[in-house]
């Protein structure tokens, strides 16, 4: 049994192998991403919430908005559902990372691709591409459905009106950013419930509460919170007059996401799997 010490060439028995690179890592992450049901459910939920709720709220408010008594711009309602679609982006971003830690899959992932930077980059690419496409498509669907109700009451807003296309594509960008933020937090805390709680609280609870802080600095902290800075890009006209302008706000949001992502990347590289 012993004695047959043959040195085996790693490439000998598997004809047709190719030297793997980053594209292999991306394709592997793509297969992983789409081969679990939570991905499909999250995307379906995004479309239903994002487009459906926009249609619902414009359908029920169109008459009031057209009556002249309204104190809100009709344009503010065209991406109304995206406020709720945010949740699905956060869920999907969290699960992409934490489901691997919850199941021990992360060890299989890092055994297959030990270059952790490549794993993180591939995950981020798959996640943001999906969320951008799904978020933008959802926003367009919501716009067409919602604007049909507004049109019926003579207050429709054409696609080429100021800020409409920016808001629709901005919705996709913001979904991608939120997903990335959730994934980064997931990488830091490695636990689904913890990561979800942190990001949902940060965006929905803390972001609203800080506006209650007194004085100019309270107002500025409010403006700079990730959810408050990032979301104006998704709205044709913002409900909240206190927030930053769309693109400056999105720049702040992007910088915040990038900062958390860098910290997560450093932790991911250093910690044991």
């Amino acid at each position: 049994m012993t004695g047959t010490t043959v040195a085996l060439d790693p490439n000998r028995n598997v004809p047709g192998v190719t030297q793997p690179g980053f594209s292999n890592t991306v394709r592997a992450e793509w297969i992983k991403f789409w081969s679990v049901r939570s991905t499909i459910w999250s995307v379906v939920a995004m479309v239903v919430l994002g487009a459906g709720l926009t249609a619902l709220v414009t359908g029920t408010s169109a008459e009031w908005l057209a009556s002249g008594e309204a104190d809100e711009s009709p344009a503010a309602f065209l991406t109304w559902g995206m406020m709720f679609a945010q949740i699905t982006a956060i869920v999907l971003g969290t699960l992409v990372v934490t489901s691997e830690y919850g199941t021990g899959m992360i060890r299989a992932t890092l055994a297959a691709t030990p270059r952790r930077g490549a794993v993180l980059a591939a995950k981020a690419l798959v996640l943001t591409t999906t969320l951008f496409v799904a978020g933008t498509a959802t926003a367009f669907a919501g716009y067409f459905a919602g604007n049909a109700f507004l049109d019926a009451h003579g207050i429709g807003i054409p696609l080429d009106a100021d800020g409409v296309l920016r808001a629709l594509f901005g919705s996709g960008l913001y979904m991608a950013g939120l997903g990335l933020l959730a994934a980064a937090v997931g990488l830091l805390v490695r636990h689904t419930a913890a990561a979800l709680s942190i990001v949902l609280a940060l965006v929905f609870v803390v972001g609203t509460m800080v506006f209650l802080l007194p004085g100019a600095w309270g107002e500025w902290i409010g403006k700079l919170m990730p959810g408050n800075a990032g979301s104006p890009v998704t709205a044709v006209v913002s409900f909240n007059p206190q927030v930053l302008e769309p693109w400056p706000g999105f720049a702040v949001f992007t910088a915040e996401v990038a900062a958390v992502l860098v910290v997560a990347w450093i932790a991911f590289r250093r910690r044991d799997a």
Partner: protein
Amino acid sequence: MIAARGLTKTYGPKKAVDGIDFTVEPGRVTGFLGPNGAGKSTTMRMVLGLDRPTAGSVTVNGHRYQDSAAPLREVGALLEARALHPGRSARDHLRWLAVSNGIPARRVDHVLDLVGLEGVAGQRVGKFSLGMGQRLGIAVALLGDPPVVVLDEPVNGLDPEGIRWVRNLARELAAGGRTVFISSHLMSEMALTADHLLVIGRGRILADCSTSDFIAEHAASYVRVRSPQPGDVADLLLRQGLDVTRHEDDELRVQGLDAAAIGELVGKSGLFLHELTLVRSSLEDAFMTLTADSVEYSATTTTTAGTAR
């Protein structure tokens, strides 16, 4: 070949792996044996670059695992049974692994056939039994047809037929010139599977030798003596400087002299003997004896007979 030099891993004040050196050679099955908590899984995670050593190094084929461009084609590993997403099918799990390392897709079906999971390849792995999960883990290990195979507790949850299958597979892989490194806490299983043993306890290597040497060296034997006058016999033997322990009422276990000499000694003194038997300790007992001081979590009750001091 796997080589560890001064490999150390500490978690806070606790040394999980304490400066170990070992080499796992190709062409034979090396059993990595130790009680739970001895440092086996920590060592294996360091081999695979998942955990970073606190000190020292471990290399596979002369380089760190992380430095391999296509690690699954160099080292195949069965990690803890459930490094799987329960919602993904067995085929999809193998598919993404194959793609990640540039392994042709037909290998997926090949290894599914090899482990006997071709009929359930489309099922979600959350529905798999422990044994099916282990088979899938072994399929993962063999996916890249690697020259080095690392299996962490591969027979856990397998039925006797599955255990025999793993044993034969390991021996075939080694016979084909591969490096096969298998961890287990079951001495009896390793005695049948491994050519070479690496025994670890409390993070230290306790033995590094061939299985047959290990058996010869560590399987201690004793002489069982039964007498209606056990107290007197024990006194007599103790006066000769022998190692005597008393079990039950009339049984003595004696080490330090062979059965014939003990019989003569007792006969000369005029005491009665009812039994005089040489007892060879089992391999499991030898393993328990060797690791007795290094068991991390031991029950408070004393272990079964056979662990003659």
